[in-house]
C-alpha cells in the first residue's frame, strides 16, 4: 500500500498549514528523516520529514497551497511498489486514508523536525480534537481555544459545558495555567480585522498575509486592547559594562564566544527576578500566577526570504545560566529562526520578553507586551553622549531602556524598583559574572 502523507498538526492551535516549498518532486527516492517540505503554520515555518522509505509517487498540493490538517498532501510508494501506479491510485489512496490518522499520531508518516512533544490536551488521542458540533460553534463565537480544554464527554469529547466553563473562566479573565510556566492561554482574540474599511487606490498593491503575520496581528491587537499598558524608562551608564565586555570578548575570542550587550541585559533582567517576582508573572483574571522558572524571550526578526516578521525565542532558566550559555543559546536560536525556523518548543513559555533595536541605532522605543507576560523591556543603542559625572561634564556611553507593563500586575513604583535593580546589575557588571 502506498503511504498517504497528510498535513500534520505542528502546533497546538494549528488548523491548517501551507506548504511553502517542496523539497522533493515526484519520482524522487526518499528515506526516513528526509525533509519533504517546509510547512508554514500559524506560528512558524517548519520542516516536515518522512517516516517512510520509498519513492514520491504524487504531490497532491502545490507550493503555496493551504490545507486543513489531515488533508492528504503527498503519496509515497513503499516496498518496491510501482510509483506510477501508486500515484495513479491517488484518489483512492487519499480517500482511503482515515482522516483521524492524520494529526499527531505517532505512527504518522510525518513528523516535525526534532519530534516535538506538543502540549496539546489532545495529543494522547492521536486524533483531531473530539468536539460536539455545538461546542465547536460556541468556541468560535466565544473565542475559546478548544485545544486548551480537556473534554468531559465520552472519550474526552469537548462538549457544551466545557466551553461554557471555559468562557466563564475567561469572562472573569482567568484561564487555568496547566503548569506554572505554561502560557496563560490566549484570551479572546478580538478581530485582527481592519477596524476601518480600507480601499485599494490607484498604484496600490495587495500583499498576501502569512500565517505568522496573522498571528502577530491577532496577538498584538489582543495584547494592546486588553492589557492596561504603561511605560517607565530609565537611562543606564554602560561604560563599565562595555569595558568589561571588551576585556571578556578579547579573552573568549579563541573559544569562539562573543558576548553581546543584549546577553548582559538578558542576564541582568533575569537575575533581577529574584527580588522582583511580579515581573515574572501573569495576570490570570482573578489571581496572579508567579512563574517558577525565569524564561526570557528575545524578539528575533526574520529575514525577508523567510517571509519576514518576528518570533520570540526563549532562553529557558535564564537566571541560572551564565553569560556564556545565554550567548550560545541566543545565537543558536537566532540562527535557527533565520534559517530553518523555530519549533514550538523554542517559542513557548516565555515569562518576560526583551526587544532590542540597539543594533539598528535606535535611541529609544516602546514595545507591546507579549501575552501572557506582564512586562517587556525595549532597549535602544548604547550611545556616547555628553554626561555629567561627579559634577564634571564628560563623554559617557548610555543606553535608554523602556519597560512596558501590565498595570493589573505591576504598579509604577514596582517598575521603578525593578529598573533600579537592573541598573545596578548593568552598572556594576561584575555582579553578572557570578
Amino acid at each position: 500500500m502506498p503511504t498517504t502523507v497528510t498535513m500534520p498538526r505542528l502546533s497546538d492551535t494549528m488548523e491548517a498549514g501551507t506548504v511553502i516549498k517542496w523539497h522533493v518532486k515526484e519520482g524522487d527516492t526518499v528515506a526516513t528523516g528526509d525533509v519533504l517540505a517546509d510547512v508554514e503554520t500559524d506560528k512558524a515555518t517548519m520542516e516536515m520529514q518522512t517516516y517512510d522509505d520509498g519513492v514520491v509517487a504524487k504531490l497532491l498540493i502545490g507550493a503555496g497551497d493551504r490545507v486543513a490538517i489531515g488533508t492528504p498532501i503527498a503519496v509515497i510508494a513503499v516496498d518496491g511498489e510501482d510509483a506510477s501506479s501508486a500515484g495513479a491510485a491517488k484518489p483512492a489512496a487519499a480517500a482511503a486514508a482515515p482522516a483521524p490518522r492524520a494529526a499527531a499520531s505517532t505512527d504518522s508518516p510525518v513528523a516535525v523536525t526534532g519530534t516535538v512533544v506538543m502540549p496539546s490536551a489532545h495529543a494522547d488521542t492521536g486524533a483531531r480534537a473530539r468536539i460536539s458540533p455545538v461546542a465547536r460553534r460556541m468556541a468560535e463565537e466565544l473565542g475559546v481555544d478548544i485545544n486548551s480544554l480537556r473534554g468531559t464527554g465520552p472519550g474526552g469529547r469537548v462538549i457544551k459545558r466545557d466551553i461554557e466553563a471555559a468562557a466563564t473562566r475567561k469572562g472573569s479573565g482567568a484561564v487555568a495555567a496547566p503548569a506554572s510556566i505554561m502560557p496563560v492561554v490566549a484570551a479572546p482574540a478580538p478581530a485582527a480585522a481592519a477596524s476601518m474599511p480600507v480601499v485599494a487606490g490607484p498604484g496600490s498593491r495587495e500583499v498576501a498575509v502569512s500565517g505568522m503575520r496573522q498571528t502577530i496581528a491577532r496577538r498584538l491587537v489582543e495584547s494592546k486592547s486588553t492589557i492596561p499598558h504603561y511605560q517607565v524608562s530609565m537611562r543606564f551608564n554602560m561604560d563599565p559594562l562595555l569595558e568589561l565586555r571588551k576585556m571578556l570578548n578579547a579573552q573568549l575570542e579563541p573559544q569562539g564566544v562573543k558576548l553581546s550587550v543584549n546577553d548582559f541585559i538578558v542576564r541582568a533582567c533575569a537575575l533581577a527576578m529574584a527580588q522582583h517576582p511580579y515581573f515574572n508573572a501573569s495576570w490570570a483574571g482573578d489571581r496572579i500566577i508567579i512563574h517558577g522558572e525565569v524564561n526570557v524571550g528575545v524578539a528575533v526578526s526574520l529575514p525577508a526570504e523567510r517571509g519576514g516578521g518576528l518570533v520570540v525565542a526563549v532562553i529557558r532558566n535564564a537566571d541560572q545560566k551564565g553569560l556564556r550559555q545565554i550567548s550560545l543559546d541566543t545565537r543558536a536560536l537566532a540562527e535557527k529562526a533565520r534559517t530553518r525556523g523555530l519549533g514550538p518548543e523554542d517559542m513557548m513559555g516565555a515569562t518576560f520578553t526583551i526587544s532590542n533595536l540597539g543594533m539598528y541605532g535606535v535611541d529609544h522605543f516602546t514595545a507591546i507586551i507579549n501575552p501572557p507576560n506582564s512586562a517587556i523591556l525595549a532597549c535602544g543603542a548604547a550611545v556616547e553622549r555628553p554626561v555629567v559625572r561627579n559634577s564634571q561634564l564628560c563623554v559617557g556611553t548610555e543606553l535608554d531602556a523602556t519597560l512596558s507593563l501590565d498595570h493589573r500586575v505591576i504598579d509604577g513604583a514596582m517598575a521603578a524598583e525593578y529598573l533600579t535593580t537592573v541598573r545596578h546589575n548593568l552598572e556594576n557588571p561584575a555582579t553578572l559574572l557570578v
Partner: protein
Amino acid sequence: MSTVTVIDPTMTATREIEFRDALREAMSQEMRRDPRVFLLGEEVAQYNGAYKVSKGMLDEFGPRRIIDTPISESGFAGMAIGAAMMGLRPIVEFMSWSFSLVAADPILNNAPKMLYMSGGQFGCPIVFRGNDGAGGQLGSTHSWCVEGLYSNVPGLKMAIPSCPEDAKGLMTTAIRDDDPVFFLESERMLGMKGHVPEGDYLVPFGQAKVRREGTDCTLVSFGRPVNFCLDAAAELAKEGISCEVLDMRTIRPLDIDSIVRSVRKTNYGVVVDQSWSFGSPGSEVASQVHQHCFDDLDNFVHRVHSADVPTPYAFNLEQEYLPNARRICEAVRSCLYRA
C-alpha cells in the same frame, strides 16, 4: 359550510370528558354537519362499539350511516375506499390497527396512491381509525404499532393524538381532509379524561404543540408516549433538568420546524416513539434533526423505542418493553452527559 375557528381548547374548555367521548363528539358533529360522512366497522352499531367509542350513534344516525360489518377488514376497507372515490367520506373503525394488516392492500396500495394513479380524477377522503400499540397484555399479534410501517407510504396523513382535546380537534380535521388519514388511538388512553370544548374546532395537521416548556433538553413524541414524556419531565425536573416536551400530533405531515426551534434552544434532542426503532418515525425525526441542527447539537439525538422484540404478553415484560418514563429519564441523562 359553517365557520370553524381554530382554537386552543385548553384555554376555553371547562368540562371534562373521556378520550372516547371526544372522538365520538367529533364524528357525530361532523355527521350532523355533512351527510356524506358515515362510520363502518366491526361492532360499531348494535354493540355500541367494541370500546364504546360509537355509543349511541346508531340511535341518532340509523343503520344506513352506522354500519356493522363482517369480520373482513380487507372487504370493508376496500368497500369504503370505493365509496370515498365516489365522493362519500367514510370513517373506517379497525377494532385494532393490528387487524388492519389483513387490509394492507386496500389501505396502503390503493387509498394513498389513488389521487396520483388516477391523475387527479379520484381522491380518497377517508379516515381509518382504531387502537394502536400495546393495549395491555394482548400478546404480540394484537399489540401492533403501525406508525413505522404505514408512515413510510407517501400520500397518506397520520394523526396520533395524546389527549382528549387533540383527539376531537384532530378527528374533525381528519374527516374534513381530502386525503386518507390514518388515525391512531390507544386502548390505554380511551378512558383518559380531559377538558374538551363543546363546539367544533380544528387542530391543524403538521403543527406540534409544546406540552411542557423547558430549556435543557427537547423531548419529541406523539401519541401515548407523550404522557410518558410528561412523567419523565416531572421526574427529571427534580434533578434540575428542564425538559421541553413536544407533542407532534401528526407525523405526516411532520412539524420539523418546531422541533428545530426547540433543539436550537436546548442543544439536545431525545425522540420517544413506541414503534420499533429500525426505520421508524423516531429514526426519521433523528435524521432530520441531524440535518437541520447539526451545528446546534452537543450530542447525537437519542431515541427511546419499544424494545426490538415482539411485544411480550407478561405484564412486567410488557411494561419494560415500552418506552416508559424510566427509560426516557435514562436517555435524557445520557444525552446530557449526566449518566
